[in-house]
């Protein structure tokens, strides 16, 4: 395996994306909303909403807390109602969005990877290079993985700062992130990113236009969104160990998907489509 070639392909794709402002627009807009607007909205809400309305919103909180593992329910014990609201919203309700984010970042780069080369008529020269099919595929995957994970982590950092600053008056201490956020950030997010990107790059090598790839990737994101919102909030409630376990399962699925993609990826199929 020639890693120099793989890095060269990834670096080249990243340079091209950097020049493409249309790709950067959504990549900047989404984190701004996720990391700044939404946490501000939820941390500042208790100042403007009467306590009774919050009480109504979190009516079944007692039932929820009783069903949680002791380690997680302990987090809520002794908190004021406003604090519970902020903690619940910022730590659990918004968490799934952070798993969707790397998919959104990477969908543009990933969808563009092979069909973009075809549409800009650069594919043929790339296929004449002495790289193997595996190196070509991995280079393209890497080009989408790096910015997706880097931007996700950057967004996490901004989110952490905003949540702590905006809720400092309420909590009087730096309390965020909760322990289960660490494995979510560094274990689950990269695994999800790789899952989405491998599928996206594979789609990009099979279809004829960027729009086709982008739309297929869009459907994928919506599907994952539905699944994730239903499941991951619950997973977070189950604590650090479960997050690690789910992450491990996704990494295994990643490995199987990449192995199968690499086995089925043939440059002759790409050239026949030119």
């Amino acid at each position, binding site marked *: 395996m020639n890693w120099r070639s793989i890095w*060269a392909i990834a670096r*080249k794709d990243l*340079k091209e994306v950097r020049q493409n402002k249309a790709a950067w627009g959504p990549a900047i807009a989404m984190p701004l909303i996720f990391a700044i607007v939404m946490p501000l909205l939820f941390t500042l809400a208790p100042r403007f909403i009467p306590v009774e309305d919050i009480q109504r919103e979190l009516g079944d909180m007692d039932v929820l807390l009783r069903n949680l593992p002791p380690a997680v329910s302990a987090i809520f014990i002794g908190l004021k109602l406003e604090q519970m609201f902020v903690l619940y919203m910022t730590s659990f309700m918004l968490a799934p969005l952070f798993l969707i984010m790397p998919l959104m970042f990477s969908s543009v780069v990933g969808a563009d990877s092979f069909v973009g080369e075809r549409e800009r008529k650069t594919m043929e*020269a790339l296929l004449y290079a002495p*790289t193997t099919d595996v190196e070509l595929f991995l280079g393209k995957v890497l080009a989408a993985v790096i910015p997706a994970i880097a931007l996700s982590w950057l967004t996490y950092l901004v989110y952490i700062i905003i949540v702590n600053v905006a809720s400092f008056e309420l909590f009087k201490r730096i309390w965020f992130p909760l322990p289960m956020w660490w494995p979510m950030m560094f274990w689950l997010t990269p695994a999800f990113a790789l899952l989405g990107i491998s599928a996206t790059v594979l789609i990009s090598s099979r279809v004829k236009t960027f729009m086709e790839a982008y739309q297929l990737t869009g459907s994928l994101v919506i599907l994952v969104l539905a699944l994730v919102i239903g499941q991951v909030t619950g997973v977070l409630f189950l604590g650090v160990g479960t997050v690690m376990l789910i992450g491990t399962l996704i990494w295994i699925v990643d490995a199987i998907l990449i192995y199968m993609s690499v086995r089925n990826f043939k440059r002759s199929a790409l050239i*026949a489509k030119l």
Partner: protein
Amino acid sequence: MNPIIEVNNLQRTFGDHKAVDDITFHVKPGEVFGLLGPNGAGKTTTVRLLNGILPPSAGTASVFGFDPTSQGELIRRRTGVLTETPALYERLTARENLEFFGTLQEIPESDLKHRVDDMLEFFELSSRGNDKVETYSKGMKQRLALARALIHKPPLLFLDEPTSGLDPEAAQQVNDLIANLSHANGQTVVLATHNLLEAQRLCDRVAIMNEGRILAMGSLNDLSRKLWPVTWVDIIFYKTPAENIAESLKAHRGVIQVTADAQRDALSVQVESDEGIPDVVRHLVEHGASIMKVNPRDYTLEDIYFALQAGEA
């Protein structure tokens, strides 16, 4: 000397369409070999098959002794390919393009910058090396694409329609570069083109293709001899010769027919082969003719091409 490329009964089909249909040829080291034919003749598919980026449906090929189907990477490390469209990354600079392809060709990091500088200088692009390719003219893009194909100094070069879409001046420039490459560097060149003048000027031998098949193959002389085994020679006199000279020439060995053009003081003589021309001249001089010009009729590749395509062969 062993051939650098050997192709035997190679075929490639796409569904029912035979893009390459049972072709056999070889290319010797150092020669410029032309694949000549209209669009859809199978030239580009042949280049793809030989570089191992498309597997054949049947037949075998060997390039540098490697099998393109299973050893494509080894072949592509030794070949440079100029594709029909320049296939450059327009959002990147010329330098970035060359560095990228140089890295893929495994040029050591320590040599890469130096090699890129050399290429930019050789193709007269140094002053624009840090400009994005999207600002380049067509001719400049084609020169850069040629630089990309040559950056790793490949001993075998495939050029697919190298002057397609260029204005005459830029086309001339690119053709001069190609002629220089094969003559000065001894590189073997496979030129896929539909441009007859270009092929005639550059190629040592050509394979004329149509609908995936090779119709004929050889040098210009070989092909014209195969198609027109007899030769016409026009002879213009300084002074009108004796009237019976045409008759006496008809009886001469190797002469097939003679037609006289009294107005131009000229004869057109059909001989069995080029070797008969000195005899004809000697005969005329011995019979008192004063000759100003002897002009054997040369066939161009265009004559050959159209004769073959029209099925005259």
